[in-house]
């Protein structure tokens, strides 16, 4: 049980970038899946179906966040943030740089990057999860990677 919840939580966390939102989004995902299980026609596609629900829940969470002003600092980041001032900026770890860069990207780009780089999904899998044609996945991933590299460069310059 925990393995599956963990997987959805990881996906949600990476898309929304916030632990509290990820908790909400994960809960929404499983509750929605329970209510909509009749829509699942092929049990072999359960994981893709569940991920699709998770992605949509995460997007909704991001939209809702637009109306909020206070964000929770992930507990795992508190210690890092506390010591960050002691570090040379050039020593900022990749994960932190990545997190900051992802914050610059729109939800759709974050989502496709997470599916590819974190979940290790190929084009066809992403197309199924996102419910879009393969060609569109290629196009969006291409744009998202460009945007991420630009954002990483911008973050590196800023620091």
């Amino acid at each position, binding site marked *: *049980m*925990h*393995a*599956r*919840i*963990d997987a*959805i*939580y*990881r996906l949600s*966390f*990476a898309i929304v970038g916030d632990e509290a939102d*990820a*908790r909400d989004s*994960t*809960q929404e995902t*499983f*509750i929605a899946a*329970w*209510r*909509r*299980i*009749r*829509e*699942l*026609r092929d*049990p*072999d596609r*359960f994981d893709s179906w569940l991920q699709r629900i998770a992605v949509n829940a995460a997007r909704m969470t991001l939209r809702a966040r637009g109306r909020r002003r206070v964000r929770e600092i992930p507990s795992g980041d508190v210690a890092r943030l506390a010591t960050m001032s002691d570090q040379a900026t*050039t020593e900022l*770890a*990749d*994960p*932190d740089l*990545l*997190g900051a860069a992802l914050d*610059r*990207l*729109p939800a759709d780009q974050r989502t496709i990057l*997470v599916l590819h*780089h*974190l979940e*290790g999904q*190929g*084009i*066809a899998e992403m197309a199924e999860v996102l*419910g879009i*044609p393969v*060609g*569109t996945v*290629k*196009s969006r*991933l*291409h744009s998202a*990677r460009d*945007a*991420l*590299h*630009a*954002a*990483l460069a911008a973050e590196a310059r800023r620091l």
Partner: protein
Amino acid sequence: MTQPDWDDDRLAAAFRARFDRPAPPTVSRTIHGAIAGTSPARTDIFWRVPGLGLAAAAVVAVLIGTVAVGLGLFGRSGGAPLASGSGVVPSAIATPTEQALPGSVLDLPIITVSDAIVIRDAGADDRELAVMGWFTPALTGLRCVPPAPVSPVELDCGDSSIWLTHQAESLIHRTATTREVSAPAGPALKPFLDVLDQSWQPADLGIGANGDSTPTDVVFIGHFDDRRAALCLDAEQAACRDRFVVDSVALVEGSPQPRSVMRYVPPTSSVADIESIVANEAPQSPILSMVIIDGNDARLTELEPTLAKAAQVRLIKLPILWVVRVLESERATTYIVVDGTDAIYEMNSEGEPIHVGGTTGDPEVTLGPWPPDGAVIIALTSPVGANDPPVQVAVVDESGRLTGVAEKGAADPSTWRFDGRFGAYAEPGRPGRVHLAWVGGICDSRITVIVADDLGTITFDMGPQPDCDSLGVGRELVLDFDGSVNVPAIEIRDVADALAPVATSPAYQLDCGPLGPDTCEQQAAALVAANVKASPTKRIVSITFTDECMSNTVIFDDGTGMTASIDCILP
């Protein structure tokens, strides 16, 4: 500290380090707490999911142990009269006329027109409903010239008399010289059943010797909020969504009806063949109706407008198709099976055919041998797979105005933005030049680009696409014509998508300067929207943001420009 470039390995490691952490224990507890006591759907499905693990199973266990599961979604009582002698299993549902009513059809509880209206008005809901009511058919012989339908579910003048009413009402009244149609006095629906066998309908509209029509009591299986309603004009959207789209005529005068199989063309496959193919994709799901039609038959518009449109613009050559409506998980799913093969496609919610099974047959026939006669061939230098030759592009000019083809022009494509897979851009100062940009794959080998005779459409055929799970590769092409070209108006299509258009081509070059991507795109969209109102005849070809206050320079397609210098206090 020197870091390597952000390659895939480094990115993946950073993603894992940043986000791969377990869910807090409260998440699991909250999920259990939220679900327990609610109505689940199909309770056995979790148990049948291979390798599902304990996540959902534990949830199911909680529910089985604590609640009584009620699967009935409707549980409504009958309201309208039905004729007796139906021959189906009677239920305990009583009606005002105290006649025995069939309790369900295909496991769908039979409801009244009034009940259906309640469901319809409760919000978007495309579940299949079995609705009993009184049917008055469409008038025949009406002399009306409706506008070309944009969606089959749009009402036209021929639908003026067609109704499914809650109570038996006589709606058509004939005299020696006239036929009058009155509106129903009680609850009623506008059914759509144009693509079903209608031989069951009464002759002469059911009009008796007294000149008044007598409605037919029926049970229809159908749905509201049909996906094809999205094709209706804005003003018709609500009426289209409210149309009760009938997928099966279940009962007429209480008698079960055979499944509707409309044969517009003789097929090679048998009904049993198609049943078997569909059953592989949708096991234990009843077929509601079948239509066999030539893919180039104009009547395909009534079935699947998106397929028909693609065929009409010669993007695809469709063979004979079986259009099969299936009742799956309380909803109607449409499958397209290519006659004589086992190739099966599922129409998704956007009206796109998605290949879901079968190994032979392909309705997406490309436009002939390659390269086509008279095509201009150019080899691209953009990336291809290791040891593969360059990508070759054949440009077919049906306009007769093409004067040159090149891979690159003066404009820098790195700042172009497009929402879809393709984009077309003007080059400032070169009114006859069209830059094309698209995202291809590493395995592209030969591509055909067809310029339509009116220069309004450019069609891409990406050629053979092996199973190549590659990332997108940006490619570009420059076309020169002998005069000015309205680039923003060009519609770009992709043969493989079998749909048009694939990109609306916002068609402006965007330089974000110091702005972040979100802010940049939002501000650019606002500028475009403002321009549409202020100067509808001029199109923006480039937007450049020059500072963090969003100062900008906008260039229009007529060569004019506008600079806005904005002062602000930066944090």
